[in-house]
């Protein structure tokens, strides 16, 4: 069962990374305009006509 010594911390670390990622995205306002994000990908304004 010695494998637990690095598997458990790894699992926790992965979970924590997810949590920190979520808190960061929340703080940077990525959930402020969910509908906007959905439609903003549609225009092709990055392509030169």
């Amino acid at each position, binding site marked *: *069962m010695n494998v637990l010594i690095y598997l458990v911390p790894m699992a926790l670390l992965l979970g924590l990374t997810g949590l920190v990622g979520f808190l960061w995205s929340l703080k940077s306002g990525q959930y402020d305009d969910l509908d906007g994000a959905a439609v903003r990908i549609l225009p092709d304004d990055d392509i030169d006509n």
Partner: protein
Amino acid sequence: MTETLDLSMFVEHGAAGASHMTLAVEGVACAGCIRKIENGLTKLPGIIDARINFTQRRLAVDWRDAEIDAASIIKAIEGIGYQAHPFAPERVEADDSAQAKWLLKCLAVAGFAAMNVMLLSISVWAGNVSDMTQETRDLFHWLSALIALPAAAYAGQPFFRSALRALRTRQLNMDVPISLGVVLALALSVFETATHAAHAYFDSAIMLLFFLLCGRYLDLAMRRKTRVFAGNLASLKAEFAHRLDMTGELTRVPVAALHPGDRVLVRPGERIPADGAILSGTSEIDESLVTGETVPRAVGGGTTVYAGSINASGALTMRVTAAGAGTLVEEVERLLDKAVAAKSQTVRLADRAAQFYAPVVHATAALTAVGWLIAGASLHDSIVIAIAVLIITCPCALALAIPAVQVVAAGSLFRAGVILNGGSAIERLAEADTVVFDKTGTLTLPDPGVDETTYIDTDVLERAARLALSSRHPLAAALARRARERIAYPGAVEEPGQGVRALIDGEEARLGSAKFCGFAEQQEPAAARGSDASFISFAQAGKTATIAIRQVLRPDAVAVTKALMARGLHLIVLSGDRPAAVAPVANALGISDWRAGLKPAEKIAVIDELQSQGRRVLMVGDGLNDAPALAAAHVSLSPVTAAHLTQAHADALFLGDHLKPVLRAIVVARRARSLMKQNLALAVIYNMLAVPIAIAGLVTPLIAAVAMSGSSMLVTLNALRARLGADEDLAQTADNHPRSPDLIRGRTSGEEEAFSSVPLPQPAAKAARRPLVEDISA
């Protein structure tokens, strides 16, 4: 005449000459609109940033003061083809937004902890029936404690704080048993871990928090959505006044920026922006929004006038005054204070359940411990079993049972065009057994319309209506709404106080008073004779017509009142208008119980009398004179066109020209209430099954976890039925109800309609409604 626009009250000044403003924008429906507005604005000199929040339909603009100002930004947006209305963010909204972020953070922490603890717990449960060593189990329990304790301390804050608040006021709410259950479960688990026991309840405690936080967050998100929508409506409706400076110069200012002492010019057709006294000018004003009276009142120098009245004929200069003693506003405010103070705090279903539930649960746990002690169990075992009882009865399902239904019902109501001001309104709406209607603006449309009962040639009516587009008179505005082709005749001239004339097909046409049209005397159509209608005459080359303009019933008023009566509700009409005007409306609707000519105090008296007979009154009204009655009633609704003070005291607002939302509100609320009761019953049944197992000492952490998540899912699924039923109903009546806001599903077409259904102040409505669609497609 040029007039400057003063928007300073909406602008926030930042550092280094930069400013910020938020605007509610109409008609933003797609990605193209976002791009057009954002790109169009950022191209302008001086604009630092322009960003549309598509979810909220709001635009945030930052600019440098030296190069551009707020008024020209709004003009620029108009040039792009959209109407933008400056928006003063409300405090409540900012608080809500901070609260939502906090809950989301708690939710994230609880979710992270629940997942990781469950990972460890499942290993332990599997290990307990196979070959896990004592050391590994203890390690896993300690790891669980390491995750669960800080996570619960952080994510449990919303519940702990609320429970403490309740206890401080010596009350019980649902958060008290929740907090107690969580804290005891954690404490017991730590003790068990320290004594190398096989069972720990870390996963139960943290999962409970996760489920409950989901419920809390959804509840708040729903409330935020309606509040944002209501905020946009308010800014769309916000009116401007023409303020006269000392030098006689005119400035357009938002009504909210007027102060007592300001001099204001009110042109014909405009709303009087504030309470005050007339300084000069004579006119007739329509006070139907204030008193319910439909006959215009003549005013002149020195007369007191109230905000919300419409100036019909002549230009007026008035001075804004604070509500003085003896005025109507002062009386209304005095009555309001009394009504609000007298209104007993209704105890909400959830709190009532909690007050009953908490003592029972805690007594059961205590009795269990005593029972096991008497039966000869050790003190440790007795306490462990008692705490297991507390954990299994921890009101996860109970605490979700009511909010889940509320969220779903509020969403249904929102789609039906009813905007709730507070959460408890749903329960109170469901209890209503008597509906009291105001007449003017509630049963009838807020603006007068063409009397349909008199026959007028359609071609003549169309010409008269298009001619009316060029007039500012309120009667003409009513007629103008009938114009199919919404383009004014070129060269039309308005002669103030008399009428409009223009050349149509080479011949002069006139619309206005009988004298202006060359009639010897007023020719009243036979059908409208003796009624309270007003008349407009039309003449062109021998073709003449007299058009009756009067208060018209909301298009579905008869059907809705019939449906309400069929549901066993008692209907009453209480109006401030004359009996002669109220009787025909009551007759048309089949309401036998009506009273007319009531003052605000008399309306309250009637409602108090009804309530003392044990009736639960739903008051529907829009006038300033209805505000105290709305506050006094058990629950209240207002159309969105209502006076400001009245809206503030209504439990919910409804949109559009139809009365249907009133019926819908009652139907949805009743269904929601029955679902709440079902959910409570489900929670009780769950407890009746689970508690004996816990008392018998047979509960393992696995059973607790399954029972808890199972019961939570059951009540949540049951709550979703509120939506199923309500939306089915809605689909059936979709034809009668074209103006429901569809913000929730993100469907934009419905929302655009909802925005355009908001009555804008005349005459701006004419200008604002016309170009929207064409410009976007151009």
